[in-house]
């Protein structure tokens, strides 16, 4: 019994933000008279927040290395938009080579900033603040202060398109493929979770008690099925959702299960100890900033595709949204603590707040104030609960 109490207590802190997200969603569901969870609105939530979700993944890694942030990502989003716009709209280049070149430009930006941060050891704050100015300036230079539009149709698919409903043989009124994909993933989850449990049992490791395991599995399956129901009732799975899901899965595995991922955590936990344990901390730092710029480029492509234009004012304050998402999601300001999933939940909290308040007709001014307070309260909760657990 005591054991179960402990498990609940441990998990509550771990899931605190997830619970908060659910509470916020229920609140807005009631306050908006059910509009928040309209199938169309759920799809919109995903589309609207796609860029923050992508940026938050990269930002998590930066923050993990020691509380470093990247202030340049908003400007990089605008800059790569300008690059892709010039290539496709002005020069009429086909989409795939244009996207490849744009990603290459993102890589170069990462190499540039990573060099100053990791090898010259100029604080990331300064380098990326400079980057914020530089890339905003270059965006204006390329676009000559004007907005480029429209992109070719196929480019708009990236953030406006949906996976075709190729399994709908009977002309059903909902998206059959989405439901099938949801079922497949639920099943996969159960298989993998059970296998992991068996493996742990084989080694004689401690497992969560069976009732908890069952409840946990039901909740996760329910979540997957609920989401696929919502998506199927509108237009199906958005293309950008597939990209984000792949990124989240990939980066979760990378940070939790690979050697370089563990080096990032080690560096943020204690850089000196990590270095004296043979971790090449310069390389780790360099990689995280290169990676951040590449992800900012992906976000930039998705954003320019969504607004169907390359604008000199695109991406303003995106860096702040991404940073806020990470900290709401439980990342430590000094590094070494935080997860990709946490940052995603943090980004969703912000996204639901934005969306819900907009539906309710709350003004932008009040929205900003409320988001600021939520950030402050979330981090305060984290700091205070940590202090308690220590004392």
């Amino acid at each position: 019994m005591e054991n179960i109490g402990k498990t609940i207590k441990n998990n509550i802190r771990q899931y605190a933000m997830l619970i908060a997200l659910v509470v916020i969603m229920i609140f807005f569901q009631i306050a908006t008279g059910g509009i928040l969870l309209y199938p169309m609105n759920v799809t919109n939530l995903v589309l609207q927040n796609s860029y923050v979700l992508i940026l938050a993944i990269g930002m998590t890694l930066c923050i993990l290395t020691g509380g470093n942030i990247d202030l340049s990502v908003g400007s990089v989003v605008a800059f790569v938009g300008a690059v892709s716009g010039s290539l496709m709209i002005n020069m009429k280049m086909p989409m795939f080579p244009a996207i490849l070149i744009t990603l290459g430009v993102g890589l170069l930006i990462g190499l540039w900033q990573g060099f100053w941060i990791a090898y010259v050891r100029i604080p990331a704050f300064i380098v990326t603040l400079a980057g914020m100015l530089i890339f905003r300036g270059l965006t204006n230079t390329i676009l000559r202060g004007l907005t480029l539009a429209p992109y070719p149709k196929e480019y708009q698919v990236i953030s406006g398109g949906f996976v075709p409903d190729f399994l709908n043989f009977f002309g059903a009124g909902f998206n059959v493929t989405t439901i099938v994909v949801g079922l497949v993933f639920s099943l996969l989850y159960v298989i993998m979770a059970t296998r992991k449990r068996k493996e742990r049992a084989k080694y004689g490791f401690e497992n969560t008690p069976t009732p908890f395991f069952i409840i946990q599995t039901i909740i996760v399956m329910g979540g997957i099925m609920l989401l696929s129901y919502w998506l199927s009732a509108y237009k199906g799975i958005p293309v950008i959702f597939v990209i984000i899901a792949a990124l989240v899965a990939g980066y979760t595995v990378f940070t939790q299960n690979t050697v370089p991922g563990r080096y990032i955590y080690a560096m943020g936990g204690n850089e000196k100890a990590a270095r004296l344990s043979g971790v090449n901390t310069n390389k780790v730092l360099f990689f995280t900033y290169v990676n951040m710029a590449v992800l900012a480029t992906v976000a930039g492509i998705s954003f320019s595709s969504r607004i169907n234009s390359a604008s000199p004012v695109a991406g303003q304050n995106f860096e702040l949204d991404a940073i806020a998402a990470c900290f709401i999601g439980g990342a430590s300001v000094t590094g070494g603590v935080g997860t990709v999933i946490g940052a995603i939940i943090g980004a969703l909290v912000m996204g639901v707040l934005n969306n819900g308040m907009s539906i309710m007709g709350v003004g932008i001014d009040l929205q900003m104030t409320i988001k600021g307070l939520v950030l402050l309260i979330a981090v305060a909760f984290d700091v205070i609960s940590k202090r308690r657990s220590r004392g």
Partner: protein
Amino acid sequence: MGTILEMRNITKIFPGVKALDNVNFKVEAGEIHALVGENGAGKSTLMNVLSGIYPYGTYSGEIIYEGKACAFRDIRDSERVGIAIIHQELALQPYMSIAENLFLGNERHKSGFINWNRTQLEARELLKRVKLNESTQTLVKDIGVGKQQLVEIAKALAKKAKLLILDEPTAALNDEDSDNLLNLILELKKDGITCILISHKLHEVLKVADSITILRDGAAIETLKVGVDVIDEDRIIKGMVGRTLVNRFPRREPKIGEVVFEVRDWNVYHPQIPDRKVIKNVSIKVRRGEVVGISGLMGAGRTELAMSLFGKVYGTRISGKIFKDGKQVEFNTVRDAIDHGVSYLTEDRKSAGLILIDDIRHNITLPSLKKISKRSFVDQNREILVAEEYRKKLDIKSSSILQKTGNLSGGNQQKVVLSKWIFSRPDVLILDEPTRGIDVGAKYEIYTIINQLADEGKSIIFISSELPEILGICDRIYVMNEGRMVGELTREEASSESIMKCIMQSNREVV
């Protein structure tokens, strides 16, 4: 002139360690009173009690200063009555001028506004008193350590200090600056200022002190009076080290093989001060199954030697040769060293040895993640098995391998660091102060682990400031002083006296 200070029955206990045990310490007004003892004998602790750094209530005993019982809550309380302590690490603000530093926290002001004229004027007076010929406007970073030390003393005088405590004031000074400083102390004595001098350099103590109190293992052994007792360096050393040795060290029959690790003509320069040579022509050898000690006082350069060997983590312009199993090797990074079978346990486990916010499991595997991973994917089941194995083997007292290392006791933290390096499977393990700050029982366990490692054929380099443990567990001992190897002693030759003699002799040669 009478007694200015009397400390009665001072006892100070840290978790697991009795740092001061019923110490009585008496200082006459206007004298220079030297406080000597080995590292860890309790000198600094005693002075921290006196100056209020350890506030009243955290120790037991009485402090009577100028006839009144005192209960200092912090350093400001002690400063108010005229006690000023100058620490080994200077507490000056490098980017402020000398004048600003002199009155830091003690500003010459009128209702909150600084009176710069008075500041400059009084600063000039103070500099004259300590015979420092510098402009009051010079930034502290632009003057040498010797002059900085004088600024510190002037700062104490600005607070109207009557009792000056100097903790190893000459440790970082060259001979000329040291002489200067000692002469200044003698001058100040004429003005009636009392001085407590902590020093390892016995010839300096003999030059200026009127009385010498010897501390050993947290107890005041004796106080010698110049002119009453017959005092020379040997007499002091005997007082410092003459302890009764109980069986605090596990026994081992050494089985020593061929030379595994050798360093020849190792030279290292200071990373910030480019022409300061920190390690001077050091050559050492370690054999299979051998525990080799490096003894020396604080600041002798032992840690710097180890860290410069371990992937050049410390120092610049490093030259010399390293041989591993007879082949010359070069360690440019920590990874190189680890991959060649050389590991280094750092002196400071909290700031450089552990990731305190992470658990036992991740700390143990960090340097060896490649060993438990396939194509960069960490096998987390194996990781748990490894961590469990070491938790059992080294008896790390913890709730589980998922406990954060920051919540472990000092001894158990050290066992985690040891596990981490043992799992990296080194041939040569450099241990830097592995028993610092941990209690006697845990020390014994760590000695036992060291013995086991040596029996398995590993070579251990054991750096320690505590003579008894060096004597207790090493097969051979190098003595280091001021960046040089000044002696090599076999187990039979080694004694506290012979080691201290090596150090003192080399000091005398430099003088």
